[in-house]
């Protein structure tokens, strides 16, 4: 029922001409973590002794 809002937003967007960012999440490296995983009953799997790789 709110399609009209999306259509209005499309019209506003067309006027603004927003440039697309070149930063891509998929292109960023995944930080490397070293450590030991333990099972915690209330919070699921948890990592202890975390070291963040470069």
């Amino acid at each position, binding site marked *: *029922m*709110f399609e009209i*809002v*999306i259509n*209005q*937003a*499309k019209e*506003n*967007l067309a006027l*603004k001409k*927003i440039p*697309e*960012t070149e*930063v891509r*999440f998929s292109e*960023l*490296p*995944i*930080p*490397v*973590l070293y450590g030991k*995983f333990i099972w915690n*009953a*209330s*919070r*699921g*799997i*948890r*990592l202890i002794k*975390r070291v*963040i790789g470069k």
Partner: protein
Amino acid sequence: MKRIIQIVDTYAYGDAIGNHVTAIYKKLKELGYDTATYANYIDSRLANYAQHLNEYCDDSDDIIFYHLSIGCALNRMVTRYKGKLVINYHNITPAHFMAPYNANYVKIIESGYADTYYLADKAAAVIADSDYNGNELRKMGYKCPIFTVPIIVKYDDYQAEPDSLVMNRYEDGIKNIVFVGRIAPNKKQEDVILDFYYYNKYFNPQSRLILVGNYNNGIESYYLKLKKYANKLGIKNIVFTGHIRFKEILAYYRVADLFLCESEHEGFCVPLVEAMYFDVPIVAYDSSAVGETLGEAGILLKEKNHPLAAAVMDQVIKDNSLQEEMKKQGKKRLSYFQSGKHIYRMIDILSSI
């Protein structure tokens, strides 16, 4: 009278499934049913409501109401009990979301799916949180009756006093865009961040993104990557709350100007219902069970178009009459979940097996 026995691997305090199990237990007791809850892991705060699974003495007349949401040894062990098995299917997050971040999680998820296939011809019935969940089981070959009954949400808890520190800090005239959910790749917080980037940069610099949810959960590398992403995009106004107390969650809902969901996998999505409860207008991407839970109570985005999402957010935040209409629709949808009839339907189904 048959006993109704709830079994869950991990009976956690404050999470959607834990709350659901407790609500069913309390209602069964109130109605005079012979009932008990058993679990392998019980949060100490729930010790009055459950016993360790080792203490369960099975009986062929029992109805075993088993809560399935993750891979664990119990998924297969539960078939060894004498009673009739009814599965409450809460869905399992597909493994491909976790694959880049945690190989152990992938193994647990894959075993969860294998177990779900294994249980296909062993359940007398299934209660699914959503049609989406039920249809997933039908595709997996389940032939038993499958009923859709929404997860039971404890609305009374939401009337508690919100955290005053959070309220004071974030009720400052800056528009708060909020998403609530553990930091996890299926929830697509990177897409929420990108929507916010466009909104903050091109529509309203007086805005803030608050991502409410635990990140100390075995997929910290995803969280760290999100932080790096926000940094590369030059976003300054972003808050990762981490694991917080319930009254703080209530406060974040109360200061929220808009609830933004880009999740690509939800078996139900309780935070949508919570946002409705707190009169927060919702903009959400249409995936999995999100559209089903949202109904007409928010704006459903059919495509991942981030500048468009930002423009929609701007429309909603600027237009008070639109917000009022969205709140009205939210209340209508909420009354469907809130009515109390669902818990009675669930109990009727269980007692008729």
